[in-house]
């Protein structure tokens, strides 16, 4: 079984967000980049399937050379092989098209992407890949069980969980719940040493035209100072919520 895990390189969740060049670009200065958390849940699941399903796990990213440390980390976690499609990833739509184009030649049984990246929050990549390849698709995936060429998968819906059965090939939008936070694999020294020997291949991009372009960014207005109510005067809070904020 061949599994592809698509990786996005994103600012660490604690990052302060700032913009430069007249608010047109994200300020990478001093930012620590990590594997997108939603992707990492999927990667961990894929690495588990190496043992349970004799799977071969390839990780792929669309990006410039600067993202390679993140791919090496994926190899240290347990992926067998890494591929970087070489271009400056500008938007999720063209990234998804690059991945779909790649997957037309290289066949995978399961393609896992995070349900969305935590930086641009587009939530577009897995859906577009499955739409273009005409593969089955399940996003917000919290359970995945493969038997032969059939998948049983669950996704979070508003107010519940839905379980479906479908054939492979399948595109999965992964999130927390597919594996638990405590299941995430922290690479050990052996993993890190082995990762250096594993293949990291660079391939040329198709350079699809950008159809979604971020022109500028701005931050929300600074919040007014909090209004404090004394702990023994909770009726004042109810009054403020009812008559000032008008939300109850």
């Amino acid at each position, binding site marked *: 079984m061949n599994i592809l895990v698509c990786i996005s390189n994103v600012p660490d969740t604690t990052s302060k*967000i700032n*913009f430069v060049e007249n608010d047109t670009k994200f300020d990478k200065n001093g930012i620590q980049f990590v594997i997108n958390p939603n992707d990492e849940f999927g990667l961990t699941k894929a690495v588990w399937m190496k043992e349970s399903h004799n799977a071969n796990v390839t990780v792929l990213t669309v990006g410039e050379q600067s993202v390679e440390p993140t791919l090496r980390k994926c190899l240290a976690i347990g992926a067998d092989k890494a591929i970087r499609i070489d271009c400056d990833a500008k938007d999720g739509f063209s990234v998804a098209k690059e991945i779909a184009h790649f997957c037309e030649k290289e066949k995978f049984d399961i393609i896992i992407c995070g349900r969305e990246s935590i930086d641009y929050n587009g939530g577009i990549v897995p859906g577009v890949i499955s739409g*273009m390849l005409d593969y089955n698709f399940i996003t917000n995936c919290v359970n995945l069980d493969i038997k032969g060429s059939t998948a049983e998968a669950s996704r979070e819906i*508003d107010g519940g969980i839905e379980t479906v059965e479908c054939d492979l090939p399948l595109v999965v939008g992964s999130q*927390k719940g597919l594996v638990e936070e405590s299941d995430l694999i922290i690479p050990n020294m052996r993993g890190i040493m082995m990762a250096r020997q594993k293949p990291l291949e660079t391939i040329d991009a198709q350079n699809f035209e950008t159809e979604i372009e971020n022109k500028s960014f701005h931050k*929300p207005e600074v919040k007014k100072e909090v209004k404090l109510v004394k702990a023994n005067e909770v009726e004042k809070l109810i009054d403020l919520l009812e008559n000032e*904020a008008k939300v109850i």
Partner: protein
Amino acid sequence: MSILVYTESENNKFKKSALEALSYSRALGDKMNESVTCLAINCNDFSQLKQYGADKIIDVNNSSLEKFTSKHYSEAITEIVKNKNIKIIILNSSANSKYLGAYISGKLGSAYISNVVDLPSELSPFLVKRTCFSNKAFSTTEIKSEIKIISVSANSFGIIEKAASSDVQQMDVKISSSGFNIKKIERQTGSVTIADADIVVSGGRGLKGPENWHLIEKLADLLGAATACSKPVSDLGWRPHSEHVGQTGKPVASNLYIAIGISGAIQHLAGINASKVKVVINNDPEAPFFKAADYGIVGDAFEVVPALIEKLEKRAEQ
């Protein structure tokens, strides 16, 4: 015909977020001088669609669409897009609609943009405002594809009444039989969902253990609110993952968010930032949540919450 809005329904009733998507479409239609067509799937009471400004309603009744799948629903939508010369598709931000938006984007080869919070500031180029960096920033983003797919962020645009006399057209759509079977749907019972809630009451580690959650539930019940929790609480297994709100959990965009015993880590605040009014109850005056909140009480949750419950019960009796 140019703008198509998929108005999501459940049990023959349109969702509030669907009416918000329709209000957005109506305003966009007025701005562009284009008509607004609603797609209603297996929902037959159109009075609300008329009330919120639909020019046309496409009424699809099809037993293959009884349960939502992105595959089948996208077949219905793409058929309409092609037949009716649709240029803009508007969706709400429910889990199903976001699932659908990206999939249709791949099917049509057209750009999809999520988390949109306002009408386009310009039509040519087509510039929309959306949230990014987990609500820590906004971007002004151009959509260049000929057909544009937009999902409107929950509770961002509002629901605006504008009566219209809508033409209703019944339509048959061809749905393929695919090997994609829904085996079961497990719903949480008797509670408001976080996605649809006007008010969310959320508990953190300050509540000390799952046995104290009756306080959160009681308060939520009195306010007609959904219950939620912080990441440590779901990681500890006190509450299910589906209640975890924050950057890696569910986003919250309610009118009122009440955080009890939650310190307000940056990842948590990112997930709830889109809520309009935030209240924090915490015994630590230095908790970062006080910097993000509109109203706050510094105090012990085990004293403050029962007092709140008592006052709200009295208020309900009046």
